[in-house]
C-alpha cells in the first residue's frame, strides 16, 4: 500500500541524492519526493511517497534511519497528518471548453495564474487524491502541460 514518510535531514548538499540513491540501490519504489528547508535552516524536511508491503516499508524506514544525514523518520500513513500537493496545469482555451474550464476551477477552488488567447494556467492545491481527481476532470478539456510539486506533509498538532 501507499505510504507517506516524513524525514528530517541535514540541509547539506548531496542529502537528497543519498536518499534517492538508497531507494534505487535497494529497489524500493519512490513515487514522489519533495524537499525544503524547515524553521531551522540547518534542517530540511523531505516528504516521500512510496509503496510496499509491511516488510518493505519497515526496511525503508530502517534504511532511511541508517543514513548519517537523516535526523528523524516518521511514517505518517496511519497517524493524523495533513498532506498537500500543488498542481500547475495548462489547458487549451477554446470557445467550447471555456465555460467548463471555469466551472471546474470553481469546483476545485483553483486559481488562474496565467491566461493567454489560447491557453490558461491554473493552480490547484489539495490532497494528492484531490489533485488526481482534478487532473482526471480536466483531461477531456485538452491538457497541454502538467507540473506537480509532489506531496508535502506534516503530522497534526496536539489539541
Amino acid at each position: 500500500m501507499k505510504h507517506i514518510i516524513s524525514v528530517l535531514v541535514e540541509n547539506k548538499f548531496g542529502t537528497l541524492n543519498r536518499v534517492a540513491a538508497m531507494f534505487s540501490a535497494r529497489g524500493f519504489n519512490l513515487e514522489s519526493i519533495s524537499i525544503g528547508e524547515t524553521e531551522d535552516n540547518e534542517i530540511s524536511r523531505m516528504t516521500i511517497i512510496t509503496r510496499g508491503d509491511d516488510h518493505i516499508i519497515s526496511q525503508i524506514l530502517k534504511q532511511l534511519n541508517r543514513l548519517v544525514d537523516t535526523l528523524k523518520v516518521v511514517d505518517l500513513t496511519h497517524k493524523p497528518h495533513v498532506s498537500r500537493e500543488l498542481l500547475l496545469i495548462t489547458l487549451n482555451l477554446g470557445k467550447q471548453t471555456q465555460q467548463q474550464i471555469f466551472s471546474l476551477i470553481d469546483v476545485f477552488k483553483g486559481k488562474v495564474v496565467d491566461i493567454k488567447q489560447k491557453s490558461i494556467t491554473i493552480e490547484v492545491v489539495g490532497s494528492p487524491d484531490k489533485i488526481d481527481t482534478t487532473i482526471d476532470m480536466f483531461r477531456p478539456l485538452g491538457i497541454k502541460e502538467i507540473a506537480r510539486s509532489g506531496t508535502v506533509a506534516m503530522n497534526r498538532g496536539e489539541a
Partner: protein
Amino acid sequence: MHTTGKKMKGSEIFFECLRREHVDYIFGYPGGALLKVYETLHDVKDIKHILVRHEQGAAHMAEGYARATGKPGVVLVTSGPGATNTVTGISNAHMDSSPLVVFTGQVPSSLIGNDAFQEADIVGITRPITKHNFLIKDIKELAITIRKAFFLATQGRPGPVLVDLPKDVMNSECVFHWPENIEIRGFKPTVKGHENQIKKAAKMIAKAKRPLLYVGGGVIASGASDALRKLAIEQNIPVTMTLQGLGAFPGNHPLSMGMLGMHGTFWANQAVNQCDLLISVGARFDDRVTGKIDTFATHAYKIHNDIDPTNIDKNIKVNLPVVGDSRHFLEEVVRELPEKSEDRQPWLDDIEKWRKECPLVFSVDETSLKTELVIDEASKQTGGDAVVVTDVGQHQMWTAQYFKFINPRSIITSGGLGTMGYGLPAALGAAFGIHDKPVILFCGDGGFMMNIQELVTAVYYKLPVKIFLINNSFLGMVRQWQELFHEEKYTFTDLEKSNPDFVRVAEAFGVKALKATNPAEAKTAIAEALAYNDGPILVDFKVVKKDMVFPMVPAGASISEMLLERLNPKTMV
C-alpha cells in the same frame, strides 16, 4: 607537541589529525592533487606511509590491516583514477563491515565540476558503497571532518568512510583546533540491547532442548569471543559460524560445528534444520548461509542480535530481535541465565551422528596434490595459530572447511563482495599489523594475477608473508558451477595455456619461491615457508585441475538438499 591554536597548513593539519587518531600506517600512492600532502609527509616520521603499486592494493591492504588489528585502515590516494581505483576495495569493506578511512585528493575547489584533469566525482561514485562520505570545502572543516570520519568508520557497525580533499584546501592555512568530543546527531547506534529483550532471550535459551548459536563477523568486530565461549560452554550449546565468524569460537572445540551454509558442514546445516532455538549473533542471514529462505530453520524460534537494525527481518523474519552490540548482548545473556539449563546431551548426540555420517574428508594420493591437503597441513603445522588470508573461490571455501581457526581475527577473507585479487594485498596489510604469528595467504592462480603487482610491496617492506598459491590453472569455482549446472562448458575458465610460470615470476619480483606437486613436497614446502622469515615466500602448489568443493548447497536450494559428492566421478582428473 602542542598544536592546538597554532596556524597550520591543511596538509599539516591532516597529519596532525591522523596522529591524534593514533594512526600507525597509511597505505597510499602519490599524485598531482596530493603533492602538498606528500611534501608535508616528507618530514613526518611517526606515521609510516606504505607505498603500494595500485590504489586497489592500498584499499585491500588497509582492510587486511584493519581486520587483523581491529584498528581502522587508512588509505591515501590521489584524485580521479587514484580515487576510482579504490572503489572495489571500498565496496569490499562496505560489504564486510571493515573500518576504513579513505582520503582522496581532489582537484582545486574552483575547478570541481569543470571536467578538470584527473577529476572524478568520487563522493558521488562512492555514496552507495560507503557508510558515509565527505567533500571538504573549507579548511575550517578539515579537522572536525577527519574526526567524524574515524568516529563513523569505527562506531556501531564498522564500515568505510571517504574524505575528499581538494588541493587548495590542503594548501591553505587556518588555526588548528582538535575537537576532542564530537556528536553526530544523525548517527546514534544502539549499543546496549533492550533489557527485556535480553531477559526474554535468556529465558528462551534456558528452556531450549536443541539450541544452536549461529554467529558472524559481528562477534569478532565487537570483541565478543570470550563471552561467546562462556555462553556456549556453560550452557552446552553448539556453535556454527559464518565465513566471517570463523575463529569467534575455537574450531578445535567439540562444540564447534564449523561453517554453515552453501559450503558449510553437513552437520551444521542439519542442526540448523533441526534446532528448536536459533541464536543468531552478529550475522545477517546472507543468502549463502540460508539457501532457500522458506525452508531455513523452520522449526526454530529465532533470536537475532545485530548492531545494525536494517539486518533485522531483512532476509529472515525473526521472533526476538535484539538490536545492540554483540559483546554486550552475550555478556548480559550469560548474566541472566540460570546455572542449570535443559539437558542438551541428546541434541549433541544427534549432531555427533550427523558428523559421523558425512564427515569432511578428502582422498590422498601420493602422486597428485589436493588443495584440501595443503590447507589441512598448514592448519596442523601451525596448530591453527596463524592469521590466514584468502582470495576468493574454491580455495577460500576449503580454507573455511579445513583450517581449524582457534582465535578471532585469524581469517581475513572477502565474504560479501567476493573480490578476486583481495588476498595478496590484504595479507600484506595483515602482516603490517601482526608480528607474533605467521601470516598465510591461500590464493588461487586466477585471483593472484589480479593484484600481483603488490609482490613489489611485499619485497620492499620485507614482509614475511607465506604465499600459498593454489594453482589448478582454472577459475576453479566457476569451473565447478560450469560442470554442475552449465553442461560442462568450460568457457574461459581454463588458464592452463595462458598462466605464467609463477615461480619465475615470483623470483623476478625478488620473492623466494618453491614448487610442490605431491603431498610429500607440499608438507616440506609448508614447513620451509613457515620457518622462513626473511621476507615473502611463495609456494606454487600444483593441485589437481578438477577438484570440487563439497558439500554444496546449489544456489536457491534448501540447505537440507546438500550435494555431498560429485554425481559423475568420471569427470574427476
